[in-house]
């Protein structure tokens, strides 16, 4: 079997080297690209992201990547959005003003109403929102209450709660720490920085392509 190819979308934000290394470790070949035809030809796609929402969307528009992302959804290509890469899949974000996102997943990105320190930095647990939700997803063999690495202040609130794949509690607030909409996954935590559990999820993503 040939190694699946994963396009890591290069829009100037994100720790792309770490993601490429993690993908290589789990048996995929990664390509850092903003070329539409390369992205569409890949077996799977990663939308990375570390940084501010507005800047991220500006860069996606500048490189003419918004339509490409909508097309990936339409043709059923598998994608995983990480951190800001997930948040941009939603319709709006209230990070420093209200900004329009890709609108691929209905819902908004809001500042977490917590009583604790923000940003939420460090390892926190994920839980399955209801029994059976993880079946046939990239979490199928992940243990409940596994810890993953987070660093964020804002969190996604999808309109359709059925799209929530994992939930996490922080500072008295429960938020959606990952989402699934058909062939698109989004996670607020960083699987590429979450040790063996994170690699296991990425491996599942690659193996399910």
């Amino acid at each position: 079997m040939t190694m699946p190819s994963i396009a890591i979308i290069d829009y100037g934000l994100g720790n792309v080297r770490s993601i490429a290394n993690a993908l290589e470790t789990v048996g995929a070949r990664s390509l850092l690209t903003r070329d539409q035809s390369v992205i569409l030809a890949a077996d799977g796609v990663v939308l990375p992201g570390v940084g501010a929402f507005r800047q991220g969307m500006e860069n996606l528009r500048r490189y003419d990547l918004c339509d490409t992302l909508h097309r990936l959804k339409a043709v059923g290509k598998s994608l995983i959005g990480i951190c800001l890469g997930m948040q941009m899949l939603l319709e709006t974000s209230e990070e420093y003003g209200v900004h329009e996102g890709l609108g691929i997943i209905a819902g908004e990105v809001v500042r977490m109403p917590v009583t604790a320190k923000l940003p939420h930095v460090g390892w926190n647990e994920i839980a399955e929102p209801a029994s059976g939700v993880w079946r046939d997803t990239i979490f199928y063999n992940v243990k409940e209450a596994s810890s993953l690495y987070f660093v964020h202040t804002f969190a996604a609130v999808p309109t359709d709660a059925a799209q929530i794949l994992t939930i996490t509690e922080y500072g008295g607030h429960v938020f959606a720490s990952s989402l699934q909409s058909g062939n698109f996954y989004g996670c607020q935590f960083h699987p590429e920085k979450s040790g063996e559990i994170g690699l296991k999820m990425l491996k599942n993503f690659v193996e399910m392509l």
Partner: protein
Amino acid sequence: MLKKRIIARIDVKNEFVIKGIHLEGLRKVGDPHELAVRYYEGGIDEIIFMDAVASLYGRNNLFHIIEQACRDVFVPITVGGGIRSLTDIEKALKSGADKVALNTQAVKTPQLVSDAARIFGSQCIVSSIEAKRAGNSWEAYIDNGREHTGIDAIQWARQLQELGAGELLITSVDREGTKSGFDNDLLSRVCDQIIVPVIASGGAGVHTHVVTMFDSSQSDAVALASLLHYNLTTVKVLKADLAENGVPVRL
């Protein structure tokens, strides 16, 4: 529940991991990459690489070590020592670091912290404070504990938070390398004054030092060197012990 982070601090001089006392009298303890991989496999939550002599030479020499580390280590990596400009920060992040630690240059030009936070995001700016007790207060030091600044360390912590630092690494110069326990007064004072996460560093010699530190301050993380480098414990054994003593850690 958010876990308390256990971080390995790897100070590097000319390709070797070194360890001193009070940040001085450095001796070689191993290869940085080998140690990083060993700690990662043992379950460490993060790794900080510090170029111990960078301020003297005016540059950070660890970028190739970072490039290598992030091929095998899948937890957050911070690099510090001799980071003097936005270009240095960009280079560090491009080489695979998730965060940079700033000290000497932040004292010289505080605007570097605010510029860096604005451009790269607060989440990747760790401000490092080397604090030495002076009577009832603490003074900030630079150049790896060599030079005093006359700046009050607690006030400096508050100012760094305002400038946009995402985390503070608080090293007690008095306790560093002594294995005599943390300066818990210093850590409590800092934690009472600021809301960004605090990483406690300097002084751990036995597990109970770490437990006591987490009990007596609101610190979010601990950076360990001697305890790990001299094989006084392993990450696994330490974490199991912390969990037994009520410190929430990732197992």
